[in-house]
C-alpha cells in the first residue's frame, strides 16, 4: 500500500479550515503516513466543470492525479466532490486510451503525463477499510454520548458501479465509523436524500437548494439529534451556511454540523476549538457544553 497525500480541494482550506486542521490531527493520532499534496488546484468541481466540458474537467483532474503519481502516493480526499472528480477521472483515464491520449497531449504543454499509477481514496472508506472500526474504537479517549444524524452525501456512494462501496439505498459503513466514537447513529426519514448543494444548484439557485436542505433538516430535527455528521465540506457548507440562510426567513433549526474528521477529533480528546467547530455559522451552546462535559471526564480505560 502506498503512502498518502492529502488533497485539500477548495471548500476545506478556503471556507472550513477547521476540517483541515481536524483531519491533520486525526491522521497523526492514527499513525497514518501522510504528506501534503503541494500545488494542487480545484479537483475540478464535478457539478459545474464536468457539466461544462468533459475534456477540461479531465485535464485539470489529471494534473492533480499526476502530482500524486510524481510522489508515488495515493490521494486522500476529504470531500465527496473531490472524491467524485478525481476517482472518476482516474478510472476514465486508466481505461480509455483515446481520452488518455487526448488529455496527455494537453498535459505535455506543462511537461506532465498521466500514467495511471495511483488510487484515489476518500477518508471515510479509507478509515473503514484501512484502519478499521476496531482500531478506531480502541483509540477513543472520550466516548461521545451523542445522538447523530449521519449524512453520507451523494457522491461518496453514487454512481455505485464506480464507487464500489456497496448499495446506496441503505449503506452502513459510515454509521459504523460514527458509532465507533461512542455516538449513536439515529435513523431518520430521507437519510440518503441529497443536501441540495450539488450540480451547481447552490451557486445559481440558492433558494431551490435550500428547499432540499430544509426537507432534510426537518426530518433530522424530528429524530431528536445532537448534531449532523457528514463527510463532505460542501454538504457541511450547505447544512451550516444553509441554516444561517434559512434563519433569515425565520426558520430556526440550530443543529451543529460536524465533519467526521472533527467528530473523531472530539473523540480523541481534542476540544471543539481544536477541531474548528467554533468556526461554524451555527453555534449551539447546549451542544458545546455537552462536549465540554464529555471532555472533562477522564480517559476511559477499556
Amino acid at each position, binding site marked *: 500500500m502506498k503512502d498518502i497525500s492529502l488533497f*485539500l480541494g*477548495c*471548500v476545506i*482550506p*478556503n*471556507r472550513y*479550515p477547521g476540517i*483541515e*486542521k481536524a483531519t491533520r490531527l486525526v491522521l497523526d493520532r492514527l499513525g497514518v503516513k501522510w504528506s501534503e*499534496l*503541494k*500545488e*494542487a*488546484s*480545484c479537483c*475540478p*468541481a*464535478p*457539478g*459545474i*466543470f*464536468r*457539466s*461544462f*466540458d*468533459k*475534456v*477540461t474537467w479531465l*485535464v*485539470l483532474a489529471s*494534473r492533480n492525479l499526476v502530482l500524486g503519481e510524481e510522489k508515488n502516493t495515493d490521494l486522500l480526499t476529504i470531500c465527496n466532490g473531490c472524491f467524485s472528480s478525481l476517482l472518476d477521472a482516474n478510472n476514465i483515464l486508466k481505461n480509455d486510451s483515446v481520452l488518455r491520449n487526448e488529455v496527455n497531449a*494537453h*498535459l505535455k*504543454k*506543462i511537461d*506532465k503525463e498521466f500514467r495511471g499509477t495511483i488510487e484515489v481514496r476518500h477518508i471515510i472508506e479509507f478509515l473503514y477499510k484501512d484502519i478499521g472500526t476496531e482500531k478506531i474504537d480502541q483509540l477513543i479517549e472520550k466516548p461521545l454520548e451523542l445522538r447523530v444524524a449521519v449524512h453520507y452525501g*451523494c*457522491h461518496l456512494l*453514487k*454512481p*455505485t458501479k464506480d464507487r464500489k462501496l456497496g448499495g*446506496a439505498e441503505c449503506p452502513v459503513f459510515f454509521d459504523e465509523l460514527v458509532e465507533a466514537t461512542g455516538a449513536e447513529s439515529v435513523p431518520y426519514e430521507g437519510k440518503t*436524500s*441529497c443536501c*441540495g*448543494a*450539488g*450540480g*451547481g*444548484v447552490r*451557486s*445559481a*439557485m440558492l433558494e*431551490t*437548494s435550500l*428547499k*432540499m436542505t430544509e*426537507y432534510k433538516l426537518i426530518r433530522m430535527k424530528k429524530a431528536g439529534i445532537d448534531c449532523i455528521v457528514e463527510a463532505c465540506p460542501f454538504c457541511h457548507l450547505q447544512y451550516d451556511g444553509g441554516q444561517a440562510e434559512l434563519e433569515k426567513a425565520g426558520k430556526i433549526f440550530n443543529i451543529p454540523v460536524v465533519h467526521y474528521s472533527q467528530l473523531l477529533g472530539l473523540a480523541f480528546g481534542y476540544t471543539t*476549538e481544536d477541531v*474548528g467547530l467554533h468556526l461554524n455559522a451555527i453555534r449551539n451552546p447546549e451542544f458545546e457544553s455537552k462536549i465540554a462535559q464529555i471532555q472533562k471526564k477522564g480517559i476511559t480505560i477499556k
Partner: protein
Amino acid sequence: MKNSEILTCFQCGTCTGSCPSGRYTSLNVRRIVKDSIKKDISDQPDLWMCTTCYNCQERCPRGIKVTDAILSLRAEAVKKGRIMPAHRAVCKFLIEMGHAVPIDDIHVTIREKIGLSEPETVRKYPKALKDVKTLLASTGFNELIQE
C-alpha cells in the same frame, strides 16, 4: 441524446419519483428522457436544477444513465453559450485562481488564528498556477465561457 439505450425507457417515472429537486422545481426527469429522443432540449433551464445526486440513474430499471445524459445535455447548452451568470463567475475564479472557491482575506486570518499557514495549493505556487492557466487555455475553456 444520441444513444440507443434511451429508447428502452418505458416511462415508469421512477426517475422523477426519486428526484429531490423535482419535489420543489419544474425538473421532470421522465419528461427530459422522453423529449430528448425526438428533439434538442439543451435549452431547457430545468437541466440546471439537477443536483447530480444520481438517484434516477441508480434506480432506473432499464439501467439508463440518466444523470450522465443530463450532464451531456448541459454541455450542449454551454457550447451554445447558455451559461448562468453565477456559473460563469465560478468558471472565472477557476481560470484566475485555480480554485472554484478561492480563499479570501477573512479566511486567511481564520487560518492564522487556528495555527494553519497558507494552503499548500496552487494559490501558493505561481508556476503551478501558470500551468493550470496553460491547460485551461489549451482545452479552449477560456473561450467556452466568454460572454
